[in-house]
């Protein structure tokens, strides 16, 4: 495709319109000249010979009449070994590299390669000379940290190819040619370990998409037991500010039982990203014994970074996640927050003077959100292996009101809704997921019927609580009062979890099954009788204290057993 040039005719915030000749692509990348710098931009609308571009940098100093060079390519990311453990901005520039080179501030109009092209990897061929291959087939692999990183036939190649030559086992860098393939017309294509893929296109080089069935354990009791998320599923966490969205996401990113976690910090506070940046390398993943950073990629476009790059940051994260899914791995993408992404769309839409929808969000908001979450899923790969991509997004509804467009559009497409409540957060009940409002369409490892039964007790308990506010404790029957105490009990010993305690922060599926069975059989389903309400309260409070202490003991340890004994003793004493 020919590369074109154009001239800027107008500037409005981060949007420029450009007069061009010849042919250009929708979503093509272009570079606008601004003084001695070149600002990266993306075509978002074409009208006759005028193209509208969103600029990924601040447009201060840009002039009408300045040159714009179109690149001929859509906005793409580099895929290849060396992505894990990296910290990128929304356009996949490595931030620590930029810091080394440019100091404290983010430079304008600078691009750096996402992958260290000179780093050597030991390539092990799998495919043989003469074999027929197509996009997504595995040519060989390199060892990237903990994982076998498959080197695949680039996803953009269409049709069938014959391998003419493949490199022997040895060390290669990302610029070395590791295979030569021939297309049907006999044209030879050289392949390296790295190739590019446009971020806004889902990667589809797999056999088929399956339905998500296996639970993705997050080690958060409230989620796993009551509102589980499946591998390959989608979930959203809406909540007002201060309700603990980010803390919950951090906990999930640490403890989720998946191979790779990709965190897209989209338009949120830089301070929170810094915490992840500085703490993850120090934290040890109990499953692998290595630092958490080795399974993590961070895409970071904080709220003060340019808005257009914020829009692309979720796509960048999603594309990297899909790439690792192609290797048969379980990947989790966490986007914090999708509302900022939607706001970025709204800003651009406003500048394009499109007819606004609700709260000035563009009319295509819903379809964009749906397309994004639809990139999740379990897939059967060409070699028969399975890979999954689970997507979780936080939503920051204006005024904490879930009726707003972004929350509603998200609820339509996700499989689990973990709504955070300000009341629970104010009462310091964490995680502050509202157990009465949230829902999930996935299956848990906990028996559905008992979980449902426990939920019913919570609903009833809430009813009694509401009533007691009117009639007081005196006017409540003993039976109702016990239901209320049981509901409170589930909440404080099972739903709430201390994210800052090393043991309680992560509760394995075995532990959850064990504890929940006990909680259900010995306490929830048991009939208790008391003379006075005060006795009932005292009993449940001491039981609660014993149970909470039990939560802090490592499962299987002696302390765990002693504490369990204490609970049994309390129950037995009451049973007498």
């Amino acid at each position, binding site marked *: 495709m020919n590369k074109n040039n154009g001239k800027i005719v107008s500037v409005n915030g981060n949007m420029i319109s450009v007069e061009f000749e010849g042919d250009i692509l929708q979503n093509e990348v272009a570079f606008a000249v601004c003084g001695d710098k070149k600002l990266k931009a993306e075509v978002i609308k074409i009208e006759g010979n005028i193209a509208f571009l969103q600029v990924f940098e601040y447009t201060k100093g840009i002039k009408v009449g300045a040159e714009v060079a179109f690149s001929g390519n859509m906005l793409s990311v580099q895929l290849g070994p060396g992505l894990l453990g990296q910290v990128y901005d929304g356009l996949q520039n490595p931030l620590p590299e930029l810091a080394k080179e440019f100091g404290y501030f983010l430079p304008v109009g600078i691009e750096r390669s996402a992958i260290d092209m000179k780093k050597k990897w030991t390539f092990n061929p799998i495919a043989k000379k003469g074999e027929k291959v197509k996009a997504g087939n595995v040519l060989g692999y390199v060892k990237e940290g903990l994982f076998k990183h498959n080197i695949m036939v680039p996803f953009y190649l269409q049709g069938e190819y014959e391998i003419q030559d493949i490199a022997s086992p040895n060390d290669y860098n990302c610029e070395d040619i590791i295979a030569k393939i021939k297309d049907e017309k006999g044209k030879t294509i050289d392949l390296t370990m790295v190739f590019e893929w446009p971020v806004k296109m889902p990667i589809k080089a797999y056999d088929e998409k399956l339905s998500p069935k296996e639970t993705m354990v997050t080690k958060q009791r409230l989620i796993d037991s009551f509102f589980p998320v499946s591998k390959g599923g989608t979930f959203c966490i809406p909540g007002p500010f201060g309700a603990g969205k980010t803390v919950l996401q951090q906990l999930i990113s640490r403890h989720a039982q998946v191979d790779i976690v990709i965190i897209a910090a989209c338009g949120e506070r830089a301070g929170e990203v810094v915490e992840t940046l500085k703490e993850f390398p120090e934290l040890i993943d109990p499953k692998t014994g290595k630092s958490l950073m080795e399974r993590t990629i961070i895409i970071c476009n904080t709220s*003060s970074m340019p808005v257009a790059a914020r829009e692309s940051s979720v796509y960048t994260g999603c594309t990297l996640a899909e790439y690792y899914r192609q290797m048969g791995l379980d990947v989790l993408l966490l986007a914090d927050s999708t509302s900022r992404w939607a706001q970025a769309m709204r800003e651009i839409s406003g500048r394009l003077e499109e007819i606004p929808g609700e709260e*000035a969000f563009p009319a295509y908001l819903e379809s964009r959100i749906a397309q994004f979450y639809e990139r999740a899923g379990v897939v059967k790969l060409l070699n028969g292996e399975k890979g999954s991509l689970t997507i979780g997004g936080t939503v920051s509804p204006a005024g904490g009101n879930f009726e707003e467009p972004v929350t509603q559009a998200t609820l339509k497409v996700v499989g689990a809704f973990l709504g955070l409540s300000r009341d629970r957060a104010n009462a310091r009940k964490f995680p502050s997921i509202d157990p009465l409002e949230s829902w999930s369409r996935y299956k848990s490892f906990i028996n559905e019927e008992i979980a449902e039964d426990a939920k019913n007790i919570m609903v009833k308990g809430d009813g009694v609580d509401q009533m007691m506010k009117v009639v007081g404790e005196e006017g409540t029957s003993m039976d109702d009062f016990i239901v209320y105490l049981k509901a409170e009990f589930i909440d404080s010993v099972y739903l709430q979890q201390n994210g800052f305690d090393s043991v309680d922060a992560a509760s394995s599926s075995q532990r959850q099954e064990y504890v929940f069975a006990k909680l259900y059989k010995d306490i929830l389903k048991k009939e208790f009788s008391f003379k006075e309400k005060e006795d009932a309260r005292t009993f449940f409070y001491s039981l609660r204290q014993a149970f909470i202490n039990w939560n802090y003991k490592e499962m299987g340890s002696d302390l765990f057993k002693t504490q369990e004994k204490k609970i049994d003793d309390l129950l037995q004493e009451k049973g007498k």
Partner: protein
Amino acid sequence: MKKVCTKIVNIVGNVLTVQAEGVAYEELAEVSTSMGRSLAQVIRLDKDRVYLQAFQGSRGISTGDEVKFLGHPMQVGFSSNLLGRIFNGSGEPIDGGPAITENLIEIGGPSPNPATRVIPSQMIRTNIPMIDVFNTLVESQKLPIFSSSGEPYNELLARIALQAEVDMIILGGIGLKYDQYIYFKETLEEGGALSRTIFFMHTASDPIVEGLMVPDMCLAVAENFALQGKRVLVLLSDMTNFADALKEIAITMEQVPSNRGYPGDLYSQLAARYEKAVDFDGAGSITILAVTTMPGDDVTHPVPDNTGYITEGQFYLKGGRIEPFGSLSRLKQQVNKDTREDHRAIMDGMLQLYAQYNETEEKRAMGFRMSQWDQKLLKYGQLFEKTMMDLKVNISLEKALDEGWQILAQCFEPEQTSFRSELINKFWPKAK
């Protein structure tokens, strides 16, 4: 070569349109009118049309007035001579002193690279117990003071300016009432803090768009001092006026409003300012405290709502006191583990009891019978409000913690509180 044009095509609201070529986006221009000269900034370019936002407003501007483009964006002088000086919203001195023309820096510079930030770790002492003990202010934190109009938020800011343990203070007024400006000036002068303070004052009588530059100027100056290793505290009052000025310009430019007339980029605009709060690895820091008045005392109003999503917590000012429950300092955990061993326990324990007091107070107001325990709580709540919450209280953190134990001992037996026994043995006041 500076471009000059002498024909103003449109004047709409505070936005002027002229015909010119080769003008850069966000470039500054000078408009000469019969009333004097004023500054304007390019906010949109459309072919040869240039849209300018006139800082002094458009009143009295003639279509024949001269517009001279200065060839650079908004700048502010930066040197240590700035200390003790007072400037207006355009960066011109209003204290009678000379203009600062050397070492000009651009305002609204690029964002710091997240990879160069460090996790904040220094407490800023203010000697206000509701801050120091319960919601500790941390270096590089950004915190709004949510308040309804009529609350003593400027008094609170002035006290923090006087007492905060920092190297220097930059005070930005946006739409500040003139008497409040005088109040700030006099209070800081009396307290002897004027020499470590820089003022950028935009008062309510100045044209509203001029206030738009104030946060950027404050923060650009702060950033340069921070890079020199200074610990800078930036105080802004009131960011709701800033948001209203944004709204006014957006409506004049016929932008589609998103929520209650505010532009869709309100979040990004506010974040671009608040995110300047930073702790540089190997240099100084910027801490931001900004008053955000809540129209109608409504925290879901777009300005406080967007602010809450950006900042690291908030102080609620209600009834002349910092409300302990809505207020939150997200960073306090980073510092309150290293102050004194009883700090966290006092913070949590006293608030839990105060929450119980509130419930009891509600019951009492509804006429329920008060038990002995309720009586204790009532006594406790009143003491707590008097010795801790009153904004006049001016004591160090350690003193405040000691006071806390005193209050507890006056009202309760040790076992009625939920404190760990080691702490009780060490800190519970012995009966005389």
